[in-house]
């Protein structure tokens, strides 16, 4: 950095501010409800996602109660158990994680971090949220329709998803498919905004290689989502046709209750291909924003530049591209050709390379850093460990010969909960602790935060580590009540009861977190504009929380990358991205 001759640096005037470009709300309604401001939309997305996520959390308690103490709770029967599983999975993966990372963090952080006033299509952005809300409401309505929500499992595999033996065959599945279609339409509207804003609305000096990794992660994940969600869209539309119009896209010839059904010739495998062509990129749609955010959290809280920034960017792009050619590793047990399995096992293992590069770089960023064990940092560290754990079991399941016996056991449940349940949620929580001061101007309570972290982190391990063992025993997933099976020792039942108790405790720790969110809003310590002394642009706004239009009269001009921490010879241990080079800083022109 210091190698650049200061004399070569010329002053660049800030970008002209075009007032007309920005939409101004005129009433309370357009300011807080039908708002076109990305920051308000972000909060709307986050609150809606959290609300429906709490429903999914309660569903997981109910499932755990049944698994831990089978036969004790008469209000959970086999159908309901399947419905809980389905709704829990679908809500958590799509309506919570995807919506929160892209709709929530994407909306809030992209314009601020790239130095834009707002998203480029604010009206479409607003529509995106309302279509998302509609999708959530349609999904939630399935709890109240005759027959209840669908119990087809979150993968909605046909033919069982639309046959009468599966709960929610009447309305549940129809509304589920409709809700997904709505979600995808809504997401596409938002996604166009995130991508084009990064491409077109970056402020002066913000080259791609000066973007914080958070933006890189969200940007790449959005592009992947825009290309992958159509696969789910196609699958949903075709299944809706099968269910409503009795076509046979996916439905083979079937006999039900002794009667030949009107279906014939369809291919359930076709659905699996479409579903996983979306489903695997979905894993990285959730993971890449988490990768990006965690990079920024670690760098900021270890007061050290991110190690291997270029490699981090390349790894994000490589993971994004590779994730489109690994989908069939979810289908090893579908009877595929062994060579096909070999191909997909190979691509799956190749994707471990860029992922491992990222993990090494995070660890090397910490190496000899000035590590502050703040709550966001704790969550970031928790993420690294959890992601490595979940990733290692991914190596097991990526290999055909190991996957086949482990398929449909609790081992799989434990694996994907570690890697794309617990790990991204830890990042979400860390990110909320990190950016809450920017949203509200107040700090979240530290003691409650640490309590929340330790219970969540340790609890997650107590829940999911034993689950791997259960899976190795052959304990199947999706079973309402395993009963007395010869291959299941009685200790496994004790373990299940233990997991349930821990799950309840971890769940209640989240209530402490929600209390913290509300309490700190009013009573939290005032944070000032940049409590973490961070370099990225969102911390340099003239107001906190940032006002409408984000910046004052002039847009910020960017002079450096996002990771100038602990630069030798600098006055402070961080140099904001919009701070001009030293020649001017010496004259006192701080931002």
């Amino acid at each position: 950095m210091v190698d650049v001759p200061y004399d070569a640096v010329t002053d660049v005037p800030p970008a002209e501010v075009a007032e007309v470009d920005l939409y101004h709300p005129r009433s309370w309604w357009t300011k807080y409800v039908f708002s076109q401001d990305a920051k308000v939309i972000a909060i709307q997305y986050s609150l809606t996602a959290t609300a429906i996520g709490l429903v999914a959390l309660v569903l997981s308690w109910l499932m755990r109660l049944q698994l831990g103490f089978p036969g004790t709770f008469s209000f959970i029967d086999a159908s309901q158990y399947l419905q809980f599983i389905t709704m829990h999975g679908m809500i958590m993966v799509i309506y919570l994680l995807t919506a929160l990372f892209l709709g929530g963090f994407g909306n809030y952080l992209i314009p601020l971090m790239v130095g834009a006033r707002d998203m480029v299509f604010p009206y479409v952005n607003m529509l995106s949220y309302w279509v998302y809300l509609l999708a959530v409401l349609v999904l939630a309505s399935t709890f109240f329709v005759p027959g209840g929500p669908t119990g087809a499992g979150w993968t909605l595999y046909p033919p069982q998803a639309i046959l009468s033996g599966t709960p929610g065959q009447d309305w549940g599945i129809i509304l589920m498919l409709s809700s997904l279609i709505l979600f995808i339409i809504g997401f596409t509207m938002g996604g166009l905004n995130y991508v084009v804003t990064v491409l077109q609305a970056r402020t002066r000096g913000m080259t791609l290689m000066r973007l914080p990794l958070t933006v890189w992660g969200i940007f790449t994940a959005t592009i992947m989502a825009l290309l992958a969600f159509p696969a789910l869209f196609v699958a949903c539309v075709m299944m809706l046709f099968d269910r409503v119009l009795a076509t046979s896209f996916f439905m083979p010839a079937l006999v039900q209750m002794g009667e030949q059904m009107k279906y014939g010739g369809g291919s359930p495998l076709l659905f699996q291909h479409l579903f996983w062509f979306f489903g695997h990129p979905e894993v990285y749609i959730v993971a890449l924003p988490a990768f990006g955010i965690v990079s920024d959290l670690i760098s900021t809280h270890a007061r050290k530049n991110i190690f291997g920034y270029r490699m981090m960017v390349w790894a994000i792009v490589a993971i994004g591209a590779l994730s489109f050619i690994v989908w069939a590793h979810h289908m090893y047990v579908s009877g595929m050709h062994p060579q096909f399995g070999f191909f997909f096992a190979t691509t799956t293992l190749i994707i471990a390379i860029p992922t491992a590069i990222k993990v090494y770089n995070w660890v090397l960023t910490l190496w000899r850093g000035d590590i502050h064990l703040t709550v966001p940092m704790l969550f970031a560290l928790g993420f690294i460990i959890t992601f490595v754990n979940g990733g290692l079991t991914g190596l097991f399941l990526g290999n055909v010969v190991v996957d086949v016996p482990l398929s449909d056991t609790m081992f799989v449940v434990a694996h994907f909960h570690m890697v794309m349940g617990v790990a991204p949620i830890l990042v979400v929580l860390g990110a909320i602790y990190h950016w809450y001061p920017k949203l509200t101007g107040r700090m979240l309570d530290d003691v409650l935060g640490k309590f929340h972290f330790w219970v969540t982190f340790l609890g997650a391990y107590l829940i999911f580590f034993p689950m791997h063992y259960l899976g190795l025993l052959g304990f199947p997933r999706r079973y309402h009540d395993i009963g007395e099976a010869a291959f299941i020792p009685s200790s496994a039942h004790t373990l299940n009861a233990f997991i349930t108790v821990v799950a309840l405790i971890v769940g209640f720790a989240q209530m402490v977190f929600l209390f913290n969110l509300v309490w700190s809003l009013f009573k939290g310590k005032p944070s000032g504009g940049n409590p973490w002394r961070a370099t990225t642009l969102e911390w340099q706004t003239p107001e906190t929380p940032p006002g409408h239009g984000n910046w004052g009269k002039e847009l910020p001009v960017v002079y450096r990358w996002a990771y100038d921490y602990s630069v030798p010879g600098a006055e402070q241990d961080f140099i904001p991205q919009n701070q001009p080079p030293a020649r001017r800083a010496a004259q006192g022109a701080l931002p």
Partner: protein
Amino acid sequence: MSAIILFMAVIAVIAGWWLSQQRLTAKPWLEEGSIGDYPGTGAMTMPAAKIGLGVFLAVAGSLFALFISAYSMRMGMVDWRAMPVPKLLWFNTGVLILSSVALQWALLAARRDDIDGVMVGLLGGGASALTFLAGQLLAWQQLSVAGYFVASNPANSFFYLLTAAHGLHLMGGLAALGRTTAKVWRGVAIAEARLSVELCAIYWHFLLLVWLIVLGVLTGWTDSFIDICRQLLN
């Protein structure tokens, strides 16, 4: 899944080419200073709406590529009975080509500041697109009269599904076209309308291309091509 893989490969090439222009090998930690010191890698200067349309076309393209992938997988099953293609589709195709030509005409007129030409082009394009949609509905009706219902064979199901998906996209385009026409009607400066006209024209050409591919798939022209792709992948 050959169609979608092919489509993704094209997207990957475009993305790769674009990324190669972005100095991804720069060492940002050494590059302190204002942007003028380094080769241009600032934000795109194209209008946001145009980039947005480009991204949207990639999404819509992915959608149709997936439909066609599903089609090519499903047609390998034993119960597939190819469906006769109504003659009307040829007329409809002609009308859609006309529609695209009209919008191109409007775009050229907008570039030479000929407001009347723009209006003629927009109205002509809109009218022929509506004719196309009416023709598609008529084709549906002819087929169902002849006993080719949506659920009677997967070939029929796909015919209705693909034409419906294409028609819905065109209807969305018509909404945008209507707004553009209203804008020109109100008499805004032609410079302001130029971008809208251009976006409509691009979208129309895209939908024409999609329709030609869909038609090729439905009539079986592309069967041998699909076979080649399938063999390549297997």
